[in-house]
């Protein structure tokens, strides 16, 4: 009995082999299972006893059942069926060997041949199947060279469908193959039922039959790994339900979906994300498997023996472990790579050490502080719980308060603050202390990925640790830009490696989310680079396409809200405390100076008594080696790397230029441009990338240019560095309090205690800000608030109070202070003469207000206390978990990040595989001839 489905390429050999049998079959039934190729014609030509064409596509078992029904000759005693697929070309002596085996053992009802590979007749494709204790089917032998090592074995639990010889009465009594098992495990299940019905199943090693692939491939051209897993898992679940004792059924049924989810997570950890869809589909399909009752009835009817009858044939754990170990051993790489410069031998460690020393000199004084403040910085929430209460979608206690989405940066701060859980604010100090050495490390590893000699990574590490954008961001308290700077080389490294590794895809996704959250202005440029990489590596499409998903999950609520406001540019606003700033001229940005002060050289030259006008010239001269070498890289070999690097530089430069022209962040009466430092970090990344390629291409001649460029970049950083070391920067050590100590003490007992801050503005207006409890922390800052150009009812209410409290007024100030739960009024110190008059007016009005008693001058400004304050309920809104929207957003983000993290966790075995593939990738990149693209590392 030969079943063919779309098997025209196999049939000629199979038919010929069948015709060449030493023991010819008595009758031959050819079944055409609705082939669409030339199979039918080939079958007709072979002139079988009967030719059956099934209506519609049938499985192997279904086709046989149909053929037996419509075309079988009348049954006679001791009749045997030999089931062959179109690819099962038997050896000429196969049938006689099989028949010989069954004739000597009358208890045998099913006999299977030894299936050999179609194109490698010496390799065993399959010879017998069994199940583990948990019912998972296992091939006893697969992919081993046939050295007659299995030729003694005979009694087995199951045989493959192809080439199976089965007694016809048994076949009919057992009802044939289970229709719910179309391919995988159909024959195994049949064999198990045959054994339970009291028959024996044997493997006949002397009968050799070819097989082009496992059962699930029958009639298919190819099958993805995920689909293969889904079919296998479906079959296993079906068998579990069929074999299970009735009492265990509810337990199995309840566990099937949770198990599917659990197994999906394991797939993720094992870097097999493509399996997850099939796993879940199989689980759900298994839970609603309509074929189970019929199959159970069939089994009950035919069963003669207990399950113990097959116990001995199951695979014990020890054997299974041994089998797995052999598989791993076969998959392990055998080749180690040694062309990369070593971190210690290559000098990377020295650069990191020097950067660490420099960092301690510049920022070491911060080490003992409780927190940092000034510039874009403020202390973080005092507790980890506080940090996490400021993420998600909910009430934002900033300004007059509103319900909205948290900045993605708040999540990042929550993570960082949780690392230093004993004092969340210390995480910011740690960033200041570690930014330079960490930059050196990330840059070194990234550059080493593209280098074979130590020069380029060392210079890249120096360039990255002493980068003007990094130091300017540190000096100005732009902690988001600092984080983006530190992480950018790691993101490049992970994205490049993501083309080969699922683990790196997840890491790149997390890094992309972190960089995007830290510096949203970089997102357009990074997306352009990502798209380009996607098109450059179409074969890794599936791996690369997922990189922005975590960032998208973080940003989605914010994007939705900003688009609803029609203020999409506000998405790129810097997170953190808004810092007043002015537009930096384009030529200053070209000198990598985010501020107008030529990387601090203006002030530096002035301080040593020279003309500040020379500052741009000095910077240009010092950076000239970098610029020249980076452009020179275009003339050297390696342009597939130079061009992307310089395009990244261009993107970064464009980001910085455009960012300085977009003033969406509002600081009181003024607007402030987007901090150019993050764009310039990208610009610097591109330049240093091109420098790296050039130094690598120059080979042994790299020493001189590398030294020149390195010295130039270190010298350029001196003013920014000395400014930080000398304390001439806006960032300062804070005692961790955001408001005067008096308020902080009161806020300990009343967390919703309000403090109204009235900041006089240069135009004579005042900016009114409401702080709750201990003050508005860095993690509470919201770009939704900082970029809002509309005034809400609450804003108008607060403004009315502020305007009246800052004037002699007949307004019911006491009543409104009670209603808004404001107990303190704070007027910051006047920064310059432009606000002096307004400052005076506000102070006069507050001083003259009978209900306010002056507390006096504090570190934060002049403070007044509303003594008749009656504690009550402050205007507030739901927390991040108190609305369905908020909870849904948190769960959605949690799931995406949880899965990404699981995917990112390196598993030792996988990492070894990955490193081996990475080297193959590098060889490919380096331009050597590579005939065969390395196989997917993880699938």
């Amino acid at each position, binding site marked *: 009995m030969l079943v063919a489905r779309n098997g025209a390429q196999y049939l000629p050999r199979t038919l010929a082999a069948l015709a060449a049998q030493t023991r010819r079959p008595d009758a031959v039934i050819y079944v055409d299972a609705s082939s669409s190729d030339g199979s039918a014609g080939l079958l007709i030509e072979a002139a079988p006893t009967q030719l059956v064409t099934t209506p519609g596509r049938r499985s192997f078992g279904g086709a046989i059942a149909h053929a037996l029904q419509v075309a079988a000759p009348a049954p006679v005693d001791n009749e045997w069926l030999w089931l062959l697929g179109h690819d099962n070309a038997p050896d000429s002596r196969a049938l006689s060997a099989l028949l010989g085996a069954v004739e000597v053992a009358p208890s045998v009802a099913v006999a299977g041949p030894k299936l050999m590979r179609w194109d490698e007749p010496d390799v065993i494709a399959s010879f017998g199947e069994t199940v583990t204790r948990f019912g998972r089917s296992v091939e006893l032998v697969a992919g081993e060279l046939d050295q007659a090592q299995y030729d003694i074995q005979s009694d087995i639990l199951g045989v493959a469908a192809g080439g199976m010889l089965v007694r016809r009465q048994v076949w009919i009594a057992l009802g044939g193959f289970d229709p719910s098992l179309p391919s995988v495990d159909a024959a195994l299940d049949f064999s198990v039922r045959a054994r339970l019905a009291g028959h024996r199943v044997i493997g006949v090693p002397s009968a050799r039959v070819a097989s082009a692939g496992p059962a699930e491939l029958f009639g298919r051209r190819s099958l993805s790994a995920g689909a293969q897993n889904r079919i296998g898992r479906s079959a296993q679940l079906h068998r579990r339900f069929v074999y299970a004792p009735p009492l265990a059924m509810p337990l199995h049924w309840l566990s099937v979906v949770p198990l599917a989810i659990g197994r999906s997570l394991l797939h993720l950890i094992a870097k097999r994300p493509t399996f997850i869809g099939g796993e879940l589909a199989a689980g759900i399909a298994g839970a609603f498997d309509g074929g189970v009752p019929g199959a159970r009835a069939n089994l009950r009817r035919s069963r003669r023996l207990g399950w113990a009858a097959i116990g001995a044939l199951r695979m014990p754990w020890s054997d299974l472990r041994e089998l797995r170990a052999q598989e791993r051993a076969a998959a392990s790489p055998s080749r180690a790579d040694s062309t990369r410069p070593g971190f210690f031998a290559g000098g990377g460690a020295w650069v990191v050490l020097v950067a660490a020393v420099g960092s301690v000199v510049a920022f070491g004084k911060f080490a003992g502080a409780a927190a940092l403040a000034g510039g874009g910085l403020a202390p973080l929430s005092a507790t980890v719980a506080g940090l996490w209460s400021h993420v998600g979608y909910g009430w934002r206690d900033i300004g007059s308060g509103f319900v909205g989405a948290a900045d993605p940066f708040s999540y990042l701060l929550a993570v960082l603050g949780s690392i230093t859980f004993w004092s969340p604010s210390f995480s910011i100090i740690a960033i200041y202390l570690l930014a330079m050495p960490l930059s050196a490390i990330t840059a070194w590893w990234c550059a080493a990925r593209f280098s074979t000699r130590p020069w380029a990574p060392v210079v890249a590490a120096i360039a990255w640790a002493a980068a003007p954008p990094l130091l300017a961001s540190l000096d100005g308290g732009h902690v988001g830009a600092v984080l983006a700077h530190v992480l950018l080389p790691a993101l490049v490294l992970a994205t490049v490696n993501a083309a080969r590794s699922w683990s790196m895809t997840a890491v790149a996704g997390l890094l992309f989310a972190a960089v995007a959250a830290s510096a949203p202005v970089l997102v357009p440029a990074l997306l352009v680079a990502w798209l380009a990489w996607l098109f450059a590596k179409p074969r890794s499409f599936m791996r690369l396409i997922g990189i922005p998903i975590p960032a998208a999950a973080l940003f989605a609520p914010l994007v939705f809200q900003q688009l609803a406001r029609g203020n999409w540019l506000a998405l790129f606003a810097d997170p953190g405390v808004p810092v007043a700033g002015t537009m930096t001229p384009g030529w200053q940005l070209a000198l990598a100076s985010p501020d107008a002060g030529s990387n601090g050289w203006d002030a530096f030259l002035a301080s040593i008594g020279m003309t500040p006008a020379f500052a741009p010239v000095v910077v240009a001269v010092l950076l000239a080696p970098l610029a020249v070498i980076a452009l020179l890289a275009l003339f050297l070999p390696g342009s597939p790397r130079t061009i992307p690097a310089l395009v990244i530089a261009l993107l970064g430069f464009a980001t910085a230029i455009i960012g300085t022209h977009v003033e969406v962040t509002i600081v009181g009466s003024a607007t402030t441009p987007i901090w150019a430092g993050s764009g310039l970090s990208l610009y610097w990344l591109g330049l240093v990338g091109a420098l790296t390629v050039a130094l690598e291409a120059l080979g042994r001649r790299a020493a001189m240019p590398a030294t020149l460029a390195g010295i130039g970049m270190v010298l350029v950083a001196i003013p920014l560095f000395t400014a930080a070391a000398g304390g001439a920067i806006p960032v300062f050590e804070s005692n961790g309090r955001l408001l005067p100590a008096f308020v902080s003490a009161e806020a300990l007992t009343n967390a919703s205690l309000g403090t109204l801050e009235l900041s006089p503005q240069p135009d004579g207006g005042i900016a009114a800000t409401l702080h709750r409890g201990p003050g508005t922390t860095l993690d509470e800052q919201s770009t939704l608030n900082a970029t809002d150009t509309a005034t809400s009812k609450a804003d108008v209410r607060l403004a009315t109070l502020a305007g009246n409290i800052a004037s002699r007024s007949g307004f019911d100030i006491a009543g409104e202070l009670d209603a808004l739960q404001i107990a303190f009024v704070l007027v910051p110190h006047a920064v310059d003469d432009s606000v002096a008059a307004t400052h*005076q007016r506000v102070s006069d009005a507050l001083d003259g207000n009978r209900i306010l008693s002056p507390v006096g001058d504090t570190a934060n400004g002049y403070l007044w206390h509303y003594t008749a304050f009656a504690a009550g309920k402050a205007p507030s809104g739901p927390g991040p978990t108190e609305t369905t929207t908020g909870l849904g957003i948190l769960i959605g983000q949690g799931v995406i990040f949880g899965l990404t993290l699981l995917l990112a966790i390196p598993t030792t075995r996988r990492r070894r595989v990955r490193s081996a593939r990475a080297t193959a990738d590098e060889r490919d990149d380096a331009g050597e001839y590579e005939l065969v693209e390395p196989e997917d590392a993880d699938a």
Partner: protein
Amino acid sequence: MPDQDDDDIFPEQEDDLPETRKPVTARGVAIVSARVVTGLIGVGIAAVTIAASALVPLPSIHSTPPSMLVTPVPTAQQLVCPGAVLRLADESGAGATTASAIGQPDTRYFSSTGAIDASPLTESDASTGGSASAPTVISTPPDQADPTQQLLLSGAQAQSVAADEFVGLAAADCGVANGDTWLAGGSTSVGRTTLLTLSNPTEVPATVNVELFGENGAISAPGTSGIIVPASGQRVLSLAGFQPDIVSPVVHVSSTGGQVVADLQESIVRGLDPGGVDIIGPTTSPSLRNVIPGLLLVGVAAVQALRVGGAAYDDLSTVLRMFAPGTGTVTTTISVIPEDGAANGTSFSYDIEAGRVVDVPIGDLADGSYTVSVVSPVPLIAAARVSSAVAGGPTDFAWLAAAAELTGNAQFTAAPGPSPVLHLANAGTVDASATLAAQDGTTTVVPVSAGSTVLVPLTPGLTYAATGLGALHAAITLTGGGTVARYAVHPPGASSSPVIVYR
């Protein structure tokens, strides 16, 4: 892309081994050319980008900061009139460190709503608490019918003194309490008594710090800081108590807690001759342009005749007192313009040293009235002193504070003294005008052309509402019988003006 090819053909390793380089082939030449072209394109793009970034102006996108104009709910307007002229020591000469009042002033006031409360301060160092000699607090509640309308309140007092060695005319307007006041005038040299009065009309005590500057710079003296002025109380302090023999004091008063109205009172006795009394009102805060209208000179000849009396009579001269906070030399431009418009004014430069008070003599002016303006590159304060006399009659003097700029609406009261005249000065370059509506219903429109000053005679004791004011400066002079008094018109209290609130 050709670059892909060249990397394939020339792996990086080959560059390190030039001696084993392959012979030059046509393809190799093509690849090197492609690199050169790529490089040139790259250099070109870099040059164009950097040039464009420096030269091409890009449009900026600005958000508009959300702002709300908050008009404070009007409250009772409150002014303090300085009260009676004070003397140290009583009539019997006892208690030389304690101030006491000489008579009581004639005070007039009016509010745009009509309703007005007047009550004396309840406490005073001069023991006048609660009496008619005490500083008077006038207040008017907001118009209940239309609480948002601007409420104008003004008052002024005049007192003609002729008691013992105190002879002269003193007039002042009623001022708004605030936290920061500059006073220029007075002297603590022999025969000159200058008292600093601090009146606190508010309901909270005020803590006052006094900064004193003299011709030798800042004066540090005990007792200048932490002066407590009780709610509804007056403190009277002698400047000589801080430091005697200051020829040219300038006083900076700042208060926290409650707010005060600060004034100086000066009396001069030359030997046994009374030299006049005056109440010196606040001058404008340091500004780049100080305008002093109403520099009224009467009896110049008689004054000149008195000046032969010796050094004690030196302070009969007309002087301009200037003080620039800070350090360095400040070049000021002083112009003196006759208010009758008959003659062109004079203008001259004068260098002063910041941090020290300078009295600049302004000599050779004939009888008449003048407007003095001082323009400087750094903010400074300025005031002037005039003297008057009639032969055989009393001698008097007046300190002329710089007048703040008036725009929109203002209200002033003509003190009930002799011959009140309003001096409306336009120090700008644009013609302006003012509409004056007197309390009795008469309305006058006064055009004031740029750079000129217009004199408007007033009815004593009447209040005038000025509307439609351009950028004008105003002062009121009183003169009669050899005595002179003058006060500047102040804009309505700023504390109730609308304020822009940003989020």
